[in-house]
């Protein structure tokens, strides 16, 4: 259970620096402003039209129009926010020399990694908890269905885990935090772009590209459906990059 010590230390570091608070604030602010002025207003306008036109009223669904977009926005903001949380995890230790301490303490590599991964995920979940204020506000004004909202959160949580494990991997490759953050952005964007380009290639390749797109797998969750394939995708994706991180940590044994 020595990983708990690492976990606690990482959490302390996150909350000792202003970075976590700044990211949390921006996270909430962007999601809130975007969502309120865009999706919620649209919903209000549609509702007013619906009051005059019963045909519209049938198509009116709070979950579909408002909540789903909330999660879509969240995922995009995460793409920019999470690399800032993961960039320091190993890069900073390498820069300041604590890397050497960390790997001469009686800890197995996976214990160190687990502690760091879970700490980062915890910070992310706390931020996510803050966004609950939006669905709760909605629930006060209208009556959305609760289950699809929870499923949406589950999807976002898994997506967050995938981003974090990817970010940790990049952070373990460099001692420069800026490279770690930009590398993570860049490569996650490539994964996103791979999904877009699927319409320009043949059908069989398109399927593969779509499946590789880390955002595509969120769609079923946003509809309120838990699809095992998508759950497995996120779990495997996270596992794969944590595995690569372990190999990268091990490279200190044969590199100078």
């Amino acid at each position, binding site marked *: 259970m020595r990983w708990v010590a690492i976990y606690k230390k990482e959490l302390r570091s996150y909350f000792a620096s202003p970075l976590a608070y700044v990211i949390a604030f921006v996270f909430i602010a962007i999601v809130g402003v975007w969502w309120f002025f865009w999706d919620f207003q649209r919903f209000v306008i549609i509702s007013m039209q619906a009051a005059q036109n019963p045909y519209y009223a049938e198509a009116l669904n709070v979950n579909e129009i408002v909540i789903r977009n909330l999660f879509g926005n969240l995922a995009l903001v995460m793409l920019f926010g999470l690399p800032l949380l993961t960039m320091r995890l190993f890069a900073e230790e390498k820069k300041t*020399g604590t890397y*050497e*301490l*960390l790997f001469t303490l009686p800890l197995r590599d996976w214990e160190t990694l687990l502690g760091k991964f879970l700490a980062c995920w915890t910070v992310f979940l706390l931020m996510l908890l803050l966004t609950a204020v939006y669905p709760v506000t909605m629930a006060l004004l209208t009556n959305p269905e609760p289950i699809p909202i929870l499923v949406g959160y589950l999807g976002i949580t898994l997506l967050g885990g995938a981003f974090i494990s990817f970010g940790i991997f990049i952070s373990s490759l460099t001692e420069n935090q800026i490279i770690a953050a930009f590398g993570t952005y860049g490569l996650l964007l490539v994964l996103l772009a791979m999904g877009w380009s699927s319409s320009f290639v043949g059908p069989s390749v398109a399927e593969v590209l779509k499946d590789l797109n880390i955002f595509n797998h969120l769609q079923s969750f946003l509809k309120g459906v838990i699809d095992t394939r998508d759950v497995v995708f996120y779990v495997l994706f996270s596992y794969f990059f944590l595995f690569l991180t372990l190999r990268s940590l091990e490279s*200190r044994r044969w590199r100078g």
Partner: protein
Amino acid sequence: MIEVDGVTKYYGPFPAIKDVSFRVEKGEIVGFLGPNGAGKTTTMKILTCFHPPTFGKAKVAGFDVVEDSLEVRKRVGYLPETVPLYTDQTVRSYLNFIAEVRGLDRSQRKKRVGEVMEECGLEEVREKLIGKLSKGYRQRVGIAQALIHKPEVLILDEPTIGLDPRQIIEIRHLIRGLAGERTVIVSTHILPEVSMVCNRALIINQGRIVAADTPENLTARLQKGMRIHIQVRDSDPREVQRVLESTEGVSRAYVDKEISQGVHRYVVESSDRTDIRGKLARKVVERGWDLLELHSVEMSLEDIFLQLVTEEPVETETLS
């Protein structure tokens, strides 16, 4: 306690250490001496399980550094060259973290953190952020970190670097105090430190151990001849030099410097360890010169060190 057998470590194509073997007994304080880049840090990194050796075996407290790395790490306290500190934490929370990773339970942790803070003089800064501490305090936090679990083996890489003279004395005192119960390896490039702190010195150069003994024995063993300083009042230093050189058993004699008007200091070196002081004195007096001073000079550890780590015989001028 520590056994190193034929250890070689390559960084890329270059060996940082080549076929290094040595042994350290329990309770010894061993000084690791060598110029920068000689392989001190590499050897320490191998002993602390940060890097495995390319070839050879190393054991600490009976455990192999590769196969039983975790057991070794439990028993070793390590202060790397760059003091590993989390600058965003307070001294107390940092030490507490180390203690927790070291497997101390809550009550032990509280006790040991208090004890090492007292030992290393950190009580007045216990709640300060490490990032706000001076170099001396940071170094002490680093040492406290290495001591917290009462390790059997303590490995300190340049523990006194960057400290002011008073702090250096304190740290040396602290290390001396550990003798007997703990085995300590200290690396340094400051020679007097070795004679002051260590029971034994290992001199390492270009990745090889070139000498290993007590500081006193090293001095005795490597001092091949004698060196004698003579002050003579005279008119012609060249004549004096010629006379001194012609004395039996003298390998070399030269003018060291002019002390005052007409008084010169000469350095006379003998090739073996026979005492030639009497002969020299008689020679000088026979010629009617005033003999003002005559004494033999011990070669310091510094001289020996230079002799060992430089290929060429050292210029005598730099030694005196």
